[in-house]
């Protein structure tokens, strides 16, 4: 790990000023940053410790029914907040399917959004990686690439965004609140992540010094609470990144889908909102035919970036499964194995 200066600002304004200097990085829990620093993959010269900034650790319901989650709320605290889990069950399930209990106790909401889009070649400093060392090339293209992206990738980078949390956040129209040198701004979570291509080294559109202070979920998110799930296929059932995952929410009236929300994880350099699939579902009868049509729409345009064509079929199956489970109704409690497709739920076929 390189040497760095450590500063602990007293408030957000001080933090923004301290982090606006070249080479500075924000430190919250550090569960991703310190790992990358230990591997000499990132080398910030100054860490601005925001973990104690006042007022950013609250979960607040707003008068308009929206929910404001402070950037320093820990992943586990959010997932286990009873009112939140009731209103946003797919998000709670996604949180609990990510990382380990120890990491969820430490990792923050803001840190989760800003964890690096990454692959094993990004971690391996002996490999060429446009994200780690811009302009050097991408060894993943001709390498071991079965875990890489099938949607939204570019020749420059085929890594995936590893967050589970961000997948349902994208589906349910989360908004990100940002503090910067020129004051406050906000944007849809979807807009936080730029399309892959021009600059693989940039995972997000934040300007130097900009700090995420909260994530907001509009009141409309809770309209899907009765019919929503997050499903995630992994190479082991717990403590693994997604091969593919899907967050699904349905608003169903008399068997007909009034409105749908769908996003995919593990398939793209960003949490992948599937709007065409949502449109295909709106007005349809909630059945397998509609779910298969939506799955095909969600993966329309997908192409392998390597030895990963299997992900295109797998993602469609997991979309059908997630929609099927969502239509059956949200379980009262997050299952013992959160987001696992290998649970014995009545009516679910293991071969979709």
């Amino acid at each position, binding site marked *: 790990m390189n040497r760095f*200066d*450590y500063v602990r600002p007293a408030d957000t304004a001080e933090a923004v000023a301290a982090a606006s200097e070249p080479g500075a990085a924000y430190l919250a*829990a550090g569960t991703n940053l*310190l790992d990358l620093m*230990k591997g000499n993959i990132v080398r910030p010269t100054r860490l601005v410790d925001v973990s104690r900034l006042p007022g950013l650790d609250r979960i607040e319901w707003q008068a308009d029914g929206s929910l404001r989650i402070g950037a320093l709320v820990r992943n586990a605290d959010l997932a286990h907040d009873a009112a939140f889990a009731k209103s946003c069950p797919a998000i709670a399930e996604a949180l609990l399917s990510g990382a380990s209990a*120890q990491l969820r106790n430490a990792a923050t909401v803001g840190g989760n959004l800003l964890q690096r889009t990454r692959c094993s070649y990004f971690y391996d400093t002996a490999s060429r990686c446009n994200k780690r060392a811009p302009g050097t090339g991408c060894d993943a293209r001709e390498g071991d690439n079965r875990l890489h992206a099938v949607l939204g990738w570019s020749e420059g980078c085929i890594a995936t965004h590893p967050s589970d949390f961000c997948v349902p956040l994208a589906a349910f129209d989360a908004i990100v609140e940002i503090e910067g040198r020129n004051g406050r701004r906000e944007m849809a979570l979807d807009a936080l992540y730029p399309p892959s291509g021009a600059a693989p080294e940039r995972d997000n559109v934040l300007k130097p010094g900009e700090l995420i202070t909260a994530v907001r979920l509009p009141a409309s998110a809770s309209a899907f609470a009765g019919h929503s799930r997050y499903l995630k296929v992994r190479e082991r059932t717990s403590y693994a990144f997604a091969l593919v995952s899907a967050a699904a929410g349905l608003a169903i009236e008399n068997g007909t889908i009034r409105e749908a929300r769908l996003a995919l994880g593990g398939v793209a350099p960003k949490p992948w909102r599937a709007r065409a699939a949502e449109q295909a579902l709106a007005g349809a009868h909630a059945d397998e035919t509609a779910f298969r049509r939506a799955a095909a729409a969600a993966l329309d345009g997908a192409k392998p970036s390597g030895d990963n064509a299997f992900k295109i079929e797998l993602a469609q199956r997991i979309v059908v499964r997630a929609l099927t489970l969502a239509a059956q109704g949200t379980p009262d409690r997050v299952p013992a194995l959160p987001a696992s497709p290998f649970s014995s739920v009545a009516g679910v076929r293991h071969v979709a």
Partner: protein
Amino acid sequence: MNLPLSLTVNGERRELVLDDPRVTLLDLLRERLELTGTKKGCDRGQCGACTVLVDGKRVNSCLALAASQDGAEIVTIEGIAQGGRLHPVQAAFIEHDGLQCGFCTPGQIMSAIGLMMEAQTGSDPERIREAMSGNLCRCGAYAGITEAVLEAQKMLGTSKTERAA
């Protein structure tokens, strides 16, 4: 750069000065406070051998900067037995053969104590296994570990929060 750091470690107040901000909580415990019960396995947050309680919550001490923990209350494996009497989780690990080589055991035990304080699993072995997935055991003592957690939960019953802390 010298950073003053005030911690409570196993009930004892420690006033320290860090001469290097790179020191992790794990290295502080092992190298500067000579509390070597907390183990360094992968040092990257993947194995759980370094698990300690920070303000009552289990975390990976290898991925926590010591400087960031100013004011925190830390409990390590050295701080859980009372007056020479093993903590019920320690006793249950022995009773149920929840270990072979023992290297991962301090982390497993601190994680199990954290799990009980979180109170999310009840007595469902599947939920316990899931909640312990951040602790690897290369000897494969998982069956015994799950049994030990189940038994310790039963023994501690309603008094678990004060005893576990």
